[in-house]
């Protein structure tokens, strides 16, 4: 074998010319190998501080949320994950003593500016909460509610948009025969997908999900995770989760928060196989937190 090679070296292909066979299944790279800096930002947070009264909860948070990617936000309880994403759509403004400083750049403007139209902001940055929170009305009206707030639609347009939102939330087949039944009669997982349908009916750009599966059983959780993976082609998703495996399964990028600061942001595969920061490693391997 070696003899032939040495005798006729010109017949050997050099490694550079050997083309590996193409894989037919698209690779799930999850942020690995992408040029993060070159991806367009959906939201750019710069030096965000947040206060509950006099108490500071976030310190100089700076992070890029990339368009059409899922960014997971992880960290121990009380580290500021929810506070951080609640600043994006200024839902904190519902409370008098809460205030945010810094910049949250979204579509060219600072969300924190007094000029921001909050109703429009919250349409464009939708939110899904930990506990499924359907309105006390029918399945249909839950989805139609936001549409009626934001748009003037004919009856048939309205029902098309409702159907479309329910389909895109992977719940249509389960509720198409009970659109007139109360939304809170559905199972927990279905209620959560109904809430996702309600959010996406308003055609947002961003979906903020704050522990969307923590009150949902494993089957419902699997459906929501699948849904997140399909939704990211159309929306930018920021997912707060306590479930490390969930962050690992669905997100492209992961940000680790600790004591109100962003310790590390990186491709999810990197964070979960070889994080750069010791604190991240200790948290995700369960050594503290």
């Amino acid at each position, binding site marked *: 074998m*070696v003899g032939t*090679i*040495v005798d006729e*070296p010109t017949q*050997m292909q*050099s*490694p*550079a010319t050997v083309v590996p066979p193409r894989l037919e299944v698209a690779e799930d790279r999850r942020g690995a190998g992408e040029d993060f800096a070159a991806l367009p930002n959906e939201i750019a947070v710069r030096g965000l501080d947040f206060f509950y009264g006099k108490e500071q909860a976030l310190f100089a948070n700076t992070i890029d949320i990339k368009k059409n990617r899922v960014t997971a936000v992880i960290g121990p309880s009380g580290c500021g994950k929810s506070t951080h994403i609640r600043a994006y759509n200024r839902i904190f403004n519902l409370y008098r003593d809460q205030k945010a400083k810094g910049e949250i750049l979204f579509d060219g403007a600072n969300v924190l500016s007094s000029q921001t139209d909050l109703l429009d902001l919250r349409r464009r940055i939708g939110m899904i909460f930990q506990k499924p929170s359907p309105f006390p009305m029918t399945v249909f009206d839950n989805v139609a509610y936001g549409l009626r707030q934001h748009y003037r639609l004919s009856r048939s347009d309205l029902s098309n948009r409702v159907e479309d939102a329910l389909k895109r939330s992977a719940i249509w087949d389960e509720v198409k025969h009970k659109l007139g039944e109360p939304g809170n009669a559905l199972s927990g997982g279905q209620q959560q997908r109904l809430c996702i349908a309600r959010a996406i009916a308003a055609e947002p750009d961003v979906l903020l999900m704050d522990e969307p599966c923590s009150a949902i059983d494993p089957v419902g959780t699997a459906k929501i995770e699948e849904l997140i993976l399909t939704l990211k082609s159309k929306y930018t998703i920021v997912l707060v989760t306590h479930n*490390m*495996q969930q962050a*690992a399964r669905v997100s492209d990028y992961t940000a680790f928060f600790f004591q109100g600061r962003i310790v590390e942001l990186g491709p999810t595969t990197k*964070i*979960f*196989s*070889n*994080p750069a920061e010791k604190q*991240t*490693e200790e948290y*995700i*391997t*369960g*050594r503290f937190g």
Partner: protein
Amino acid sequence: MTHLQREIERLKRKILALGAVVEDNLRLAFQAIEARDADKGHRVMVTDILIDDQEVEVEEECLKILALYQPVAGDLRFLVAVIKINSELERIGDLAANIGERAISLAQEHPVPAPGGFAVMAERTGAILEKALDALVRQDAATARLVLAADDEIDALYRGLIEDLKEIIRTYPEHLDAIVLLFHVARYLERLADHATNIAEDVLYMVEGEIHRHEMPNTPAELFRWDERGM
């Protein structure tokens, strides 16, 4: 210490214990060849059965930890490295058993002069394995790199040894059967060093999170040299 950490500590002790048994058995196999001692050869082969059992045990332990704890980051890399090192140790165990087997056959053959390179290669191969296991114990990338560097030396020793053995065949053609057995042993030693090198690569991955295998040559000329290494 969390439950997972306790499991990982236990697994670490198991893989190190397996490494120690493999190392001892290899040393016994060398002695069997040197002393033309069939009895020692048999002992090596029996011990290999125990090594195989331990390998299965370590693998089951790894699968259990993966299934129950879904480790990540350093813990995940440790688990993956142990699964691979475990197989390498088992293969080294098999090669030691093969050497033991050849020792039994050699004991029945007419004594032939073994080339001096034999003892050197056996010593160096044993030392490389020891270093690789040392790198594993101390999770030490620098030691692992020493092992990687030493593999070329073993390959050179191997080539020298083959030349010496050819010379001995020319001198003692009547003892061809015995000399062929020595050829086998030389080949096993060379393979053994490769497995020890693999262990060092796995340790590097565990410590640094980068995969160091298959660092490919760039030019055709390098490729031929690279291909020759394994012969």
